[in-house]
């Protein structure tokens, strides 16, 4: 063979490799898989340990189930791992009847010998509640969500009635308790897996190599690079439609956009260039109005904002619609109060503040600041759904306030420094926001503005109103929706009058996907779910005698 024929042979082989091998195999492999471009690496695979959205996106609805779920348009509670539940009349004893034959994941690191039972529920919640529990201190011992709802103050005891019945005994009635159990954070872990890890001395692995009952199981995780999930074939509900789910971790927004446009990912989180995506027929941009609030808060302990009139004047002088058009690119709803209008507790009679610089000016005069004053605005340095660009927003507010004679200095720090200094109260006013963990309205009222929370508080206005706090407490103690609604309406009226914060907008969470990806991914609260997602092929799959599938490769 001379060199010419050798060369042509090489060319033929290369051409065959590049084009000729489309025998339907990979077509079906990519059809049976979804690549999701996610925005960051999760800290762990246990949502109990963190309130970070990245962590719950990568774990809650994929790897786990909780006792209850939210269902339907009005987010009512529906059964999940608990097939039924019963609340006593005083609301202090809640009994859950567990579903039988619920399988845990079988993976390379764990093979379950039994299905879900009451021990798993006890293991999961005692880990959070009991400081002496062998797993309480594993991974740091911080359970931020449970801490924020004061879970350990509320739950007296959890009893195992029989194999498939557990009873929670509460110290007092709390109408948001069931809603808390349906959040992304109240996932059920495997007690048997915990015992196995204790025996082998690898307790810390429980949060890194997770075992749950969810529709997917973890195959591989490389920090900063990818997470690979396989379908859980023994899932107690209908199996997921896709066999493989890969999270392509791409923190840069431009690289997520490029990968989406180049079809290297099927779904992308938090996309930029909305216009460009909507233009293309092969892509779809979607959004859910998430329960969140972006607001402008005042430090009510520092002059001049200790004066109610000044707070009202500044609020009146800010053109909210301009902020929504510029900062949110009109993709948000103007907020009338801290509670989104979609919440059942929202009171339609809440008056909306109308932009009125003239009235603002006269209010300032009444307050004794006719000459204006100088203030600072602290703008958060990171991008969040509830505030995509706080610095730009601060600049717009700066321009608005200049018109009524107030000079504004914009302050910003690196994120953790920013939060630390805010909690010390060094600021006069600040731009921040809140995303709800569950649909119960209490999650907004008490997290943002109640004074009962002390040093660990989320309340950076340092506003403290006894009447407001009493209303919230009363609302939690009753289960009657109409009564609760009344209490919350009164609370909203107090906020509108006192104006410790100026609510700005309820924004949407965005996601983009190829139009061949079907099924709901985003949910109203917290995490994303790929359980019902499937892929429609653009080219019909060719017949193939290939029998191997991913199913056989699990283990």
């Amino acid at each position, binding site marked *: 063979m001379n060199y010419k024929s050798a060369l042509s042979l090489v060319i033929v082989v290369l051409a065959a490799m590049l084009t000729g091998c*489309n025998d339907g195999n990979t077509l079906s492999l990519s059809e049976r898989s979804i690549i999701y471009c996610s925005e960051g690496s999760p800290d762990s695979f246990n949502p109990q340990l963190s309130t970070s959205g990245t962590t719950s996106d990568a774990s809650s609805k994929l790897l786990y189930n909780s006792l209850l779920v939210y269902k339907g348009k009005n987010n009512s509670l529906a059964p999940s791992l608990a097939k039924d539940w019963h609340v006593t009349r005083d609301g202090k004893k809640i009994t859950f009847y567990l579903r039988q034959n619920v399988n845990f994941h079988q993976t390379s690191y764990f093979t379950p010998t039994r299905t879900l039972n009451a021990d798993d529920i006890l293991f999961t919640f005692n880990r959070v509640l009991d400081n002496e529990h062998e797993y309480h201190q594993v991974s740091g011992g911080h359970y931020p969500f449970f801490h924020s709802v004061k879970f350990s103050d509320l739950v007296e005891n959890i009893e195992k009635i029989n194999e498939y019945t557990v009873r929670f005994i509460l110290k007092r009635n709390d109408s948001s308790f069931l809603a808390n159990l349906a959040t992304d954070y109240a996932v059920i872990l495997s007690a048997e897996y915990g015992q196995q890890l204790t025996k082998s001395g690898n307790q810390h692995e429980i949060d890194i190599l997770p075992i749950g009952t969810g529709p997917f199981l973890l195959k591989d995780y490389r920090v900063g690079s990818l997470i690979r999930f396989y379908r859980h074939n023994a899932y107690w509900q209908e199996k997921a439609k896709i066999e493989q789910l890969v999270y392509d971790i791409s923190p840069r927004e431009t690289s997520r956009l490029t990968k989406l446009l180049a079809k290297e990912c099927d779904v992308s989180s938090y996309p930029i260039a909305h216009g460009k995506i909507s233009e293309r027929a092969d892509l779809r941009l979607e959004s859910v109005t998430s329960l969140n609030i972006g607001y402008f808060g005042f430090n009510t302990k520092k002059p001049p904002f200790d004066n109610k009139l000044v707070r009202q004047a500044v609020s009146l002088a800010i053109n909210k619609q301009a902020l929504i058009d510029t900062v949110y690119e009109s993709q948000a709803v103007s907020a009338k109060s801290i509670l989104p209008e979609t919440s059942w507790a929202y009171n339609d009679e809440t008056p909306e503040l109308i932009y009125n610089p003239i009235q603002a000016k006269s209010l300032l005069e009444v307050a004794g600041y006719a000459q204006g004053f100088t203030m600072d605005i602290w703008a958060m340095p990171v991008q969040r759904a509830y505030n995509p660009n706080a610095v730009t927003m601060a600049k717009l507010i700066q321009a608005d306030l200049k018109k009524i004679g107030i000079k504004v200095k914009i302050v910003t720090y690196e994120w953790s420094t920013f939060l630390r200094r805010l909690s010390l109260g060094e600021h006069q006013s600040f731009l921040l926001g809140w995303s709800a963990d569950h649909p119960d309205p209490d999650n907004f009222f008490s997290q943002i503005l109640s004074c009962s929370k002390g040093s660990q508080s989320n309340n950076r206005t340092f506003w403290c109103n006894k009447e407001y706090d009493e209303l919230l407490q009363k609302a939690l103690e009753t289960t009657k929706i109409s009564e609760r609604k009344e209490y919350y309406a009164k609370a909203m009226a107090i906020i509108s009058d006192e104006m410790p914060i100026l609510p700005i907008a309820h924004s949407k969470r965005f996601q983009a996907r190829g139009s061949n990806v079907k099924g709901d991914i985003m949910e109203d609260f917290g995490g994303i779910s790929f359980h019902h997602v499937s892929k429609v092929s653009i080219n019909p799959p060719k017949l193939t005698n290939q029998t*191997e599938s991913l199913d056989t490769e699990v283990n």
Partner: protein
Amino acid sequence: MLTFTLRRLSLFIFTMLVLTLLSFSLSFLFPGDTVINHSGQINATAEELTLVSNSYHMDKDIFSQYGAYLSHIINGDLGLSMASQSPISNEIMELLPATIELSLVALLIAMLVGIPLGFIAAINHNKTSDNVILSLAMLGYSIPVFWLGLLAILVFSITLGWLPSAGQISLLFEIEFVTGIQFIDILLSDSPYKWQAFSNASAHIILPACVIALAPATIFIRLSRAAMIEVLAASYIRAARAKGLNFSQIIFRHAIRNALIKIIRHVGLQFANLVTIAMVTEVIFSWPGIGRWLIESVYQRDYTAIQSGLLVLSCFIFIIHILTDFIYAALNPLARGNNHGS
């Protein structure tokens, strides 16, 4: 040949000493504690730190500190990455093969395109095709690589949708890590989707490799053109022509072989240039290689990774230089007489 080898070897050892001296002094120049910069142990307790400090002879004079540092390197201990807290030698062993793979493919493309074009230009010396090739080479050489990379993604990935824009292979394929060279790993794996993975990996390497290859290819064009012109003017070509050999016999039997020898020396030099271009390109194409890792380490102020990464990378480039020197010497007996390093 023995003297030649010994010369090269001593050159290698002394250059390595200078390089380690440089990376050793970096630990003192970077902000922070010297021991922590050496070892990357940022979370160590006081006792652990004392142990590390002893192993680097921090209580003794500077020469014995340097000696301890050298012995750590020779034992393959490059410290821990400050960012990920895993051994740097492991990270480099995982990432360097990807860079080698990309650079080799790029080098191959540059040679396959550049050298024939240069020959064509030389054969048509001072004609239109010569001028066209030369101006194209000049144009290609002047294009900045980061701009070209982004443009290539815009055209071939986003607008035309022909080639992928990021990574080494689609994440759907699970290829076990054996050698780190993706193509070899794919062939060794027992995945049912082996050939699909192979073609997918080929599609992934085309864009970054072509972007890297452009600048070296233009250099090869100019080198091979000059070499060919020189060879064609030589008296043995004139003699061959006088003997009545036809054009293709002269070119393929005599001119090409003699011109190639002149070029092969420069391949090694170009490889260093190519690795530098590859580092920038890896960032643009999210290629999981050592260049991207090193640039990320700079962002994260991962001093241990920067100093060890630089050491390994320069060592690697130096080894390539010596290898090409050997190949050149093997092909061209005249060079073996050249005892001094160059």
